[in-house]
């Protein structure tokens, strides 16, 4: 799984590509942990752009749950955006779709992101 990062006005954008399954979950968790630690210094938001995320297994869902929990503890706004239909289905079925902030696309997610601190 390939993960890239972008920064947009204080919000960190995390862009995973490929399949988030049992095998890829630990690395994804490590990266998301790093991203949260990074924005912790200047608390704003973390948005995971799922445009290129093809598949999420239950082990992958768990990493999103852990990320949402750590983000809440760190006071970082956490959101997802641009879920593919199959992934959207997994989020809806498990109930995670209602538990987390999910935006239709990146533009909406960034527009809703908290203002960066001066």
């Amino acid at each position, binding site marked *: 799984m390939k993960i890239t990062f972008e920064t947009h006005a204080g919000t960190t954008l995390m862009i995973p590509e490929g399949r988030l399954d049992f095998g890829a979950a630990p690395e994804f968790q490590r990266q998301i942990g790093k991203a949260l630690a990074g924005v912790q210094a200047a608390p704003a938001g973390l948005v995971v752009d799922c445009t290129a995320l093809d598949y999420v297994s239950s*082990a992958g869902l768990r990493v999103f749950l852990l990320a949402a929990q750590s983000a809440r503890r760190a006071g970082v706004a956490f959101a997802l955006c641009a879920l593919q239909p199959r992934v959207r289905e997994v989020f809806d*079925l498990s*109930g*995670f779709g209602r*538990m987390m902030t999910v935006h239709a696309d990146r533009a909406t997610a960034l527009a809703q992101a908290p203002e960066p601190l001066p």
Partner: protein
Amino acid sequence: MLPPETAATASEANMGAREIRAQRVPEAHPPMNLAPALRSAHSVRAAVRARAQLILRPDRWIGRAIDNLILALIVLSVGSVILEAIPGLPAWVRRTFRVEEIIVVAVFSLEYLLRLAAATKIRNFVFSFEGVVDLISIAPFYLAGVDTRAVRALRLLRLLRLLKLQRRVLESTVAERTRELADKNASLEEAQAQLKAELEVARALQIAILPETFPMKPGCDGAARMIPATTMGGDFYDFIELPDGRVGLVMADVCGKGVPAAFFMAVARTNLRDIAPQYPEPGACLAQANERLCAHNPMDLFVSVFYCVFDPTTGKLKYANAGHNPPYVRRTDGSVEALSGAGGLVLGAMPGVQFPDHVAQLRPGDRLVLYTDGITEAFNSADEAYGEARLIAQIKAYGDGAAVGLVENICRSVAVFAGAAPQSDDITLTVLKWGAP
């Protein structure tokens, strides 16, 4: 002395330095159509090699004795070469040195022959560092004839026997390290085998706690199957007999797999079994189970659960869904419908979640099919998922017979679809066939 066959086996098992060296050279296989005489010559050669290897084995007393003898003779002969250089030595001293030299060369020569015999490929030994050093140690004697004083330069060559000493030290160090490594490997392998055996037991236990048969209820024919992806799975199903005569059916999938998932599965199952008799409504039962799981969840795991309470006298089904794939009902006319309806979050993720109850009615001859996503998300080599459509097709096609028949057909269809692709998730399936009592 052991018979040759046994000796060869014992020698293969030995991890001494010499055998390691021999192993680098692949065994020369005889051509297919050898004359019997050649074949027997080959087997004689093999027998001799096996015996020679057995004699030289550093872990047996005889090999160690030879080593020590050679070591002593090296020191002795090198000392003699130096002392011989002193001018004006008495004749008897020179004679003693002479005799000593003959004995040393005789022993070294025997040792050289023995090593030649033990070598898997003679040429490789002769041209190896060890082989050359061994040969240099004895060659001056034979080159100069019996009187080595005639060739002073050759006499000095005997000092090269010190190389033989160095070779021995090197060799024994390598042998020791190899033995240590072999010991460590053996204990690692033992530990791994033990761990594997324990996991096998745990897996057997995990499968054993799942109910084998559906409760004996009038008109009910139930069958279930669970195929873990790794040694330990996170899926489970359950049939719980409730005090009012109804039966609770559980289909659940813990996130992830392996030992943590298996532990969480056992906890979740115990909680549900414990709570179910006290909560006749499935939604309330799931809510209570969620509270308990959230209270003690050190690994932040969660489980998706479909829970329904079935009344075998009326065919009435009450259900609630905690983030699980909706089961299917196959009607007698062959149509298949999903038991959808709003569900709640998976259990263990967050406390305070509510799970709405829903009702469905089974008619005589209907089948209820509960499953985990190990079926719909079984992938083949082309990375395609089995999917809901194939599952529904199976349910439509094979839903007429006994419950176990449909279970077998679906499992076989998934296996055929996946082909050689590894099973990435647990596969669990329950079929309940109901005919009015």
